[in-house]
């Protein structure tokens, strides 16, 4: 099956899962090597959660072959379970128990004896920065603390592969960055991670390798820069102080780049592909100055994953996702990151 000397971390061949008339996965193909964070990216309903549930041995594929570290998720389910830790979409911690009690319970269920379970819980508490709240009931936790505790619960058995299904959905910006920091630390310490997300900025922040899926099929796979490069050219982005001048700015940018210039729905920005890069940027700056238009921010950047995703799936599919409230949250956390500024939620451009 594999030509290398070690089995890949995850090998999915033609995975199909049907729930009645709904086809959740439709021949999904995916290979992941150890030593990296893999993001499975796709709009709601793309099949991300179903794929995670297959890996977690909760759903049996109707056809195809799915292996984790060479072990089949159906035939060798028991050994797969020893190797994985699952943090699902909902924080599955017991609210009436303290953080420590939750972790010790899960450690015991992973197979640790009492003393080892205590050590594992203590270590995870420290690692995930939960020391201050560890002995409080988890019902008193903030959203981010509860997610981190849930993350911890999936870790206390020191799994070889951590499965995170939409780890930050529904969290406020502060909690989101807390969870991101925790995931980064885990990745640095050598845990292999597969996470699903429909936030492009999340994949941008955390993942080494991205697999884009839609309608249960893999539509793209590669490193982040490969994915961005696959839609090619740089983008000029102009932010204006006075929204009334937006149309004029769009006209000027379109003239210079001789292509379509797109005003953002927020009414503050114009973006346009710039095939000639820096030269065109200079030209736009000169013309805007000549027209006495005050510019808040102007720059040339690589396309965002958002744009890559739209190019891959087509705008119609992206329009399926609606998450207006979360969109604002995502934008808030990104103010100091011009490379991915704006609203990186898939749904935001629809």
């Amino acid at each position, binding site marked *: 099956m594999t030509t290398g000397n070690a089995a890949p971390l995850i090998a999915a061949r033609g995975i199909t899962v049907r729930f009645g008339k709904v086809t959740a996965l439709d021949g999904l193909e995916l290979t992941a090597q150890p030593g990296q964070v893999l993001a499975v990216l796709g709009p709601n309903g793309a099949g991300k959660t179903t794929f995670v549930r297959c890996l977690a041995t*909760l759903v049996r594929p109707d056809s195809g072959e799915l292996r984790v570290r060479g072990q089949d998720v159906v035939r060798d389910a028991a050994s797969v379970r020893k190797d994985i830790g699952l943090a699902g979409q909902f924080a599955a911690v017991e609210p*009436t128990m303290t953080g420590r009690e939750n972790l010790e319970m899960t450690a*015991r269920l992973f197979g640790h004896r009492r003393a080892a379970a205590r050590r*594992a819980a203590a270590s995870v508490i420290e690692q995930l920065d939960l020391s201050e709240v560890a002995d409080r009931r988890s019902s008193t936790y903030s959203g981010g603390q509860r997610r981190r505790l849930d993350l911890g619960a999936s870790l206390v058995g020191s799994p070889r592969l951590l499965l995170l299904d939409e780890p930050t959905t529904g969290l406020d910006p502060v909690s989101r960055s807390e969870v991101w920091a925790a995931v980064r630390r885990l990745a640095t310490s050598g845990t292999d991670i597969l996470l699903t997300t429909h936030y492009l900025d999340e994949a941008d922040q955390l993942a080494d390798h991205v697999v884009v899926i839609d309608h249960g099929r893999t539509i793209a796979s590669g490193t982040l820069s490969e994915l961005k490069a696959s839609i090619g050219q740089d983008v000029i982005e102009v932010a204006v102080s006075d929204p009334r001048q937006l149309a004029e700015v769009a006209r000027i940018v379109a003239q210079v780049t001789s292509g379509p210039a797109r005003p953002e729905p927020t009414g503050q920005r114009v973006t346009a592909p710039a095939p000639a890069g820096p030269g065109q940027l200079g030209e736009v700056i000169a013309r805007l100055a000549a027209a006495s238009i005050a510019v808040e921010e102007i720059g040339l950047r690589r396309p965002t994953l958002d744009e890559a995703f739209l190019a891959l799936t087509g705008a119609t599919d992206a329009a399926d996702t609606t998450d207006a409230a979360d969109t604002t949250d995502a934008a808030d956390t990104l103010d100091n990151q011009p490379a991915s500024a704006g609203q990186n939620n898939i749904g935001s451009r629809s």
Partner: protein
Amino acid sequence: MTAIGILERPPRTPGLAGASGQVALRALRKYIRTPGLSVMGVVQSVLFLFSFRYVFGGAIHAGATSYVDFLVPAYVASIVLFTGGGIAVAVAEDKVQGFTDRMLSLPVPRYALVLGRTIADSATNVWTILSTAAFGFLFGFRLPGTWQDGLAALGLCVVYAVVFTIVFIVMGLFAPNAQAAQGMSLIAFVFAFISSAYVPATSMPGWLQPFAKYQPITPMVDAVRSLLAGSASDVGLALAWSALLVVVFTPVAVIRYRRG
């Protein structure tokens, strides 16, 4: 800071007893630490008993025995039918909120979920049975026979608690959410009320009597009454029903849990 990467790996997979114990411990902690469950459950069952004893009781003729002596044994025997809704709701919540998924993704024996849940919920039902029985005495119930007979009857009530715990677990597993589980568990009221528990079955209209007579609750409460009086009539039938329900519902629960 300890790196997660060097955390020790679990030496083995957990055994059935250990895993069931953890599942039970969690359910018990949740029950004890949620006053809405542990305290209000008892308050509710005592209020029911109070209403039957002092509100409806005066209008019900139970033959030769006084109504309180007729009511209390049957009420304690069938109390699990009223409290069981909580079990179904808890099981449905675990499923919806991801706890069951987490459990099934762990290397635990599949039976541990049902066994742990059954142990915990049986224990909480024993608590309800004991406290309700205590209030029964307070409301005027007296043992007709010896205290040994009383203990035997209590033991049989505990058997029923275990049996119906499994039935309510299955209800919770089939319910799509907690509200639906609550609704489904109301079906138990039909069995509780259309039986010989609260009124003699012979006082019901003729078309209803066959259901009252042949459904499991009637022999079950009759068996408790007869044990109290020092006889054992209906006990065999009651235990046969108990065994049948366990044999039918346990595999359903295990299979359903496995599907997640």
